[in-house]
């Protein structure tokens, strides 16, 4: 018969033991990184860094917004030295909270002014383009729209998927709104809803739905279709379409890196960011995981669509929180989330 006493006591003792032994060390040759970029993408860069410097990296992966919240909650007791964010939103939020340390000029000058914080506290290290994904059996390139504003036409009725609750979409919509004004942005979104645009929660879900012809178009990050094609080959019936050069539909969202001002390892932390921006790692990012490199002098992989003209870092945002809150209010009011 089952006897809990033989079972509970050793397990509890075991857990306590493991817990105590897991308490962190203050090894000067060790850095703690909070990464909002997936391990599958940036893990190899961290391994290369450890191999080339002998510095140990402790990496906590999670969603960028969650990690920013954790960093804020931990406050001055955070163990983190470096934060990698999926976009400037979460790092910008922490910058507004005065939680970040200024980066060295060497690092900031590795990228163009559009790809770093105007205040010098974060730097972009890789870009994803906002594109229109379409089903290649249903639509030819000639029929594709030149502008995101064309999607409100009758011919796109009920055929466009919008990831309204997705962070990248919200990044794009924030810039779209600041570029074109609130009124134009609100009208566009309302027209999209009136034209039967459908809400999908995730970019990946849209690329899948378009691939299986559940819906014909979707506003997504360019990266997902590359992943699907890498796995499915010709069986993947979807492709990316960048809007015409300069159109508000295209935008580069930049993954961003920052150093926490509570970090006791400022120099090592900056060293890691320099490494991210090195030619070698930038080449890895574009050739192996199909992102746009941001370091000046490194060219994007030949398979990528043209680099979007506009980037999310090009517009300085005074108050990141209120900018995104306003974006969310407009998205909620449009009713797209109920479609």
């Amino acid at each position: 018969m089952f006897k809990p006493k033989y079972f509970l006591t050793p397990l509890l003792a075991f857990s306590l033991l493991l817990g105590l032994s897991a308490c962190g060390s203050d090894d000067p040759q060790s850095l703690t990184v909070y990464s909002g970029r997936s391990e599958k993408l940036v893990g190899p860069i961290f391994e290369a860094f450890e191999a080339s410097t002998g510095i140990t990296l402790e990496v906590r992966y999670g969603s960028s917004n969650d990690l920013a919240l954790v960093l804020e909650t931990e406050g001055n007791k955070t163990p983190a030295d470096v934060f990698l964010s999926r976009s400037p939103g979460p790092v910008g939020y922490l910058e507004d909270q005065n939680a970040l340390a200024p980066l060295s000029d060497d690092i900031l000058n590795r990228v163009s002014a559009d790809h770093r914080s105007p205040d010098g506290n974060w730097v972009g290290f890789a870009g994803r383009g906002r594109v229109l994904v379409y089903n290649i059996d249903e639509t030819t390139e000639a029929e594709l729209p030149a502008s995101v504003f064309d999607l409100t036409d009758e011919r796109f009725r009920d055929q466009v998927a919008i990831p309204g609750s997705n962070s990248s979409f919200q990044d794009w919509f924030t810039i779209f709104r600041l570029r074109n004004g609130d009124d134009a942005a609100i009208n566009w979104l309302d027209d999209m809803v009136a034209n039967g645009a459908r809400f999908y929660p995730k970019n990946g879900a849209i690329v899948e739905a378009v691939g299986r012809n559940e819906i014909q178009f979707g506003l997504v990050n360019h990266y997902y279709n590359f992943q699907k094609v890498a796995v499915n080959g010709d069986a993947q019936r979807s492709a990316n379409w960048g809007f015409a050069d300069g159109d508000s539909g295209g935008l580069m969202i930049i993954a961003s890196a920052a150093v926490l001002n509570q970090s006791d390892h400022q120099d090592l932390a900056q060293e890691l960011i320099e490494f991210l921006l090195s030619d070698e790692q930038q080449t890895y990012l574009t050739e192996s995981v199909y992102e746009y490199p941001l370091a000046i002098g490194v060219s994007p992989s030949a398979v990528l669509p043209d680099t979007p003209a506009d980037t999310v870092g090009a517009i300085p945002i005074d108050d990141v929180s209120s900018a995104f809150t306003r974006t969310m209010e407009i998205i909620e009011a449009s009713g797209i989330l109920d479609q």
Partner: protein
Amino acid sequence: MSEPITQAADQPRAGVGRPAPALTFLALAIAALFAVPGGYVLWRTATAQVDHLGLLTSAATLDPLWRTVQLAVLVSTTAALLGTGLAWLTTRTDLPLKRFWRIVVPLPLVYPSFVGAAAFLSGLTPGGIVHDLAGAAGFDLNLRLHGLFGAWLVLTLFTYPYVYLPVAARLAALPRGLEENARLLGDRPRTVFRRIVFPQITSSVAAGALLVFLYTVSDFGAVHLMRFETLTQTIFRTRLFDQDRSFTLAFLLLALALLVIATERTVARRGARSAIISNQPALQVPLGRMKPLALTAISFVVGLALFAPAISLADWGLFGWLRDQNGTTALRMDWSDVIVPTWNTIWISLVAAAAAITAMLPIAYLLARHRSRTGDLVNTVVVAGFAIPGLVVALSLIFWTLHASPFEFLIGSLPVLVFAYVVHFGAQALRTSQVAVSTVPKQMDDAARLLGARKFRRFFTVDLPLMAPGLAAGGGLVMLSTMKELPATLLVAPIGFRTLAVEIWSTYEALYLPETALLALVLVGISALLTWLLVVRRASHLA
């Protein structure tokens, strides 16, 4: 007519005898720990720079609140009906293959809702394998899965085991004498069920439906994929840039949960309960001409809830494995990416389950043996932990550990992670522990005392062996929830601690679907094994 039988139990009625001060103190201390997430939400709401009344009465709040209530009421009602019906079929009828059904019927509980819903969606919609297989077999599965319907369907299918397990156990353990007497007195089977059986299972149904309700209001994955804007969605979307609103809405969610918990407590009190647990096989009803219909119904439910997502996962996984075998695209993981997380998942969930049972036991004693205001308070605080979204639980523990407790040194360690699991999921073991305690006949304890056994000795040699099966079953529910837990694991676990849920999330985020599918199948497999070992085999004691 059931009243004399209930009274015939050799139990003290709840409320007889005041709880020992030590027991009250212990229960209150445990409840204080469980109050950490709720207290954090309360504090953040109170200090939020918002117009609380305006926010709480605005359409942007009331719409998602109304949707949340609609969904939770629908899901808990249908899960209650489905769980009870399936429990009756598998315990009280001559349904063929009963042993098989008893193992597979509870298993849909093991799908992490984000993967389960994703697999479900991609399998059942046009182009998905289940849809196409059904099409080939002549069925046109024209499901448009989104919104209230989609969220209701997925959540009902994944949560009915919360009702099924306790009700099946209760039905199996009900003394046959009650029903035999009623039949001898001339009642027809339907009347027997309504007058005798139903009052005996009400509290189990209510306890299960409560867990379903709380699961639904705090779920994020399924409603997100089904594009249904509930309160958790709004909380999640505003969590960073509009924290004041996010926490105020979390407070609203908590208030809703407290209201429902109080209601369930009232229902549970009213329900009659025979304290005698029978060892005889339960009374069986021959299905007769209904047998094919019953078999079709149970196959349909299990097919949709368990096999449809599993087939989608197998489709993704097999596809990836085949491409790996013929050298087209290598799988982007190796054995160590599976074995280490699997081992971590197994042992951490067992530790969490054991810790949850340990924490629930004193409370179960208090609730089962005494009726007190303290008991009500403790019950409410503990159960509410299940309604708070995992992310909020994680943040509250980080804040508490670092800034408001002497345990700063424990941050990022396994005890804090286990603590998070226990606070979040402990409620799932509370009712089963309570029932386990009430199955210990008081006179047995008295006999042991007369023979000179001391308190602790009595507990270990008399109470614990009697309660073990029931406790293990409650722990089983905690274990399954822990195995698929994601937000707290990501944010609170020691850095580098990998569980299957973490790996599934990480591959899914990168859209590595074959790898996601293989890991999810491993999770389903080990959950099935542990469910069988810990829950199903002992389910007869899980009343």
